[in-house]
């Protein structure tokens, strides 16, 4: 396989192939039809599948999710788009209290094969309401599955898995990875939800990162290798359910861990990963599990501040060096 396509194209191809294969799949969201979506993730789909299956909706996030829930529970397989991840807050009840809980509340009799897609992450000077990484919120809600691909290959495989999944899933596209190129097979394939990828094996410290931070962490790891620091890099890919086993196994080997995410540190998903690591690998740990994340503030608009807000390669590197340098237990 040598074909390279972008993260957006990988998303688009997954949707297109599943729509071709399964006529119960449809898409709905703001500006996704005629315009192809503000990030062009849905480009060209209305041309192929028509207005009935690729639907421009009103600006009504609650009804967009409701559209998905009701259609999913009655035999369709909807993909609904919430333009920016920040806007899940507008539809939060439908996501948290309806989509996530319907199966359980109904004693199993409902099945909700719904995929919600949304654009997350910062770094575009899009300010406090268009830059958030809110994965911790949705990962706390039983009933949802959450994926966040860091590259085009994972994007296609995870998106395909989401569409075929019989439970509600949330696909977080990272806004700054949209143009990222990578090798992607033409035929459909799935990456099973809940399986992490170990991108780099290493002996000295385990770095767990997701979304755009995977790529930052990977580059830092390559650089540190030159200094003889051997970093294992794990991308969970699916944030809920989390592949804790792969993470814990790795830390049992390396005895040290650093977690990197773009979201605010306090009560971010990194806290859960750290808590689990110290629970499951306590006797193996030579240093506390460190977290590199955003500080406790809304996302600032000005690049002058946002660049300090987002975890940088420098901060990741420093955190890894600190943890590795710490005297072992």
């Amino acid at each position, binding site marked *: 396989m040598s074909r390279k396509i972008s993260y957006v194209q990988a998303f688009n191809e997954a949707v297109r192939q599943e729509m071709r294969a399964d006529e119960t799949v449809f898409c709905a969201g703001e500006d996704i039809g005629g315009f192809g979506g503000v990030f062009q993730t849905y480009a060209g789909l209305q041309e192929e599948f028509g207005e009935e299956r690729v639907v421009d909706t009103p600006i009504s996030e*609650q009804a967009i999710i409701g559209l998905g829930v009701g259609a999913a529970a009655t035999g369709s397989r909807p993909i609904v788009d919430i333009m920016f991840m920040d806007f899940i807050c507008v539809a939060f009840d439908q996501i948290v*209290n309806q989509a996530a809980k319907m199966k359980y509340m109904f004693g199993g009799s409902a099945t909700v094969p719904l995929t919600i897609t949304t654009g997350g992450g910062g770094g575009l000077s899009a300010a406090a309401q268009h830059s958030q990484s809110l994965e911790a919120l949705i990962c706390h809600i039983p009933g949802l599955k959450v994926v966040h691909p860091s590259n085009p290959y994972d994007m296609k495989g995870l998106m395909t898995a989401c569409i075929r999944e019989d439970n509600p899933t949330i696909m977080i596209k990272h806004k700054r990875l949209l143009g990222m190129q990578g090798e992607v097979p033409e035929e459909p394939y799935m990456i099973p939800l809940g399986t992490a990828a170990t991108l780099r094996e290493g002996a000295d410290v385990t770095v767990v990162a997701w979304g755009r931070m995977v790529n930052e962490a990977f580059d830092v790891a390559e650089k540190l290798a030159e200094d003889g620091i051997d970093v294992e890099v794990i991308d969970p890919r699916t944030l809920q359910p989390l592949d804790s086993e792969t993470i814990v196994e790795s830390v049992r080997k390396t005895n040290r861990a650093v977690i990197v995410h773009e979201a605010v540190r306090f009560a971010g998903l990194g806290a859960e990963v750290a808590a689990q690591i110290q629970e499951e690998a306590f006797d193996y740990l030579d240093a506390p599990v460190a977290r590199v994340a955003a500080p406790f503030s809304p996302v600032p608009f000005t690049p002058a501040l946002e660049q300090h807000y987002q975890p940088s390669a420098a901060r990741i590197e420093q955190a890894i060096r600190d943890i590795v340098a710490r005297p072992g237990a």
Partner: protein
Amino acid sequence: MELSTDVLTDMHRRMVRIRLFEEAAGKLAEAAKLPGFLHLYVGQEAVASGVCTALTDQDQITSTHRGHGHLVAKGGEFKPMMAELMGKATGYNKGKGGSMHISNLDVGMLGANGIVGAGAPIAVGAGFGNKLKGNGNVAAAFFGDGSTNIGAFHEAANMACALKLPVLFICENNEYGEFTARDKTMAITDIVDRAAGYGMPGVIVDGMDVVAIHEATIEAKNRAVRGEGPSLIEAKTYRFYNHHGVQNLGLKYRTDDEVAEWKQRDPIFTFEDRMIDAGTATRDDFDGVWAELRADIDEAIQFAEDSPVPDVDQLLVDVYTEMPAGATS
């Protein structure tokens, strides 16, 4: 419209089934035999019955916190309903949903809902699915007067109209939301005034007159099936008991006179009188129905009481179609 005796008998039967179920539930609640909250439908029987006699099993409905009546009218059976209210394993929701989430997808009842207004977007989704599949079914959303003040209702109504979906909006205007009168929470008297803002027809019907409701529903359904989009039906009705539970608790939010006046217009008794006057049925016929259904209720209570509660190993069943390994922590 000339309704057949079969339909009239069916309407009556559904109303009596609701009344008996609700009265029984109220008594059980007063005897502290039902856990949780209980919102009784007594007084509003004509609405659910008039609507649901115009629907098929394949048509869907969404409901509210006051949902038993809707489920009974849609064809729900006493035994699994009563068992659900008692939190038993034999309940429709295996005891996991209770009164506020009672559901049965086999008869197209997509759940009572604990969140005011949240059912409407889900009905829109069911309607969308129907349109996509071209199956000729319609989805009806039941909701109260108070719930038309919440955003989800608005988004659902607008989206259904924008997409011309086969959806019926059934407002049960009982003049109160909990303990607060309608005129404190809106500056209009008739909910139907909202229909024009979405571009759908709206009609007020006497919510104590099952025939009027049935006829309005048939018309709205025909319109929806013809592809002309949704309609709003406002049924002016009243709940005879308190917002939740049975007693008015000496609450002063409505006068005894007002309650008494509405009780004069009891939807079942007035219907029976009309049928007898018209020579369509006799008092004996009706007595027979009540007696038969009373026996059914007693049997259902017995069934529910005899049923086991769910085993503790059911706690994590049906969160997902299959519980992922990583998620059980």
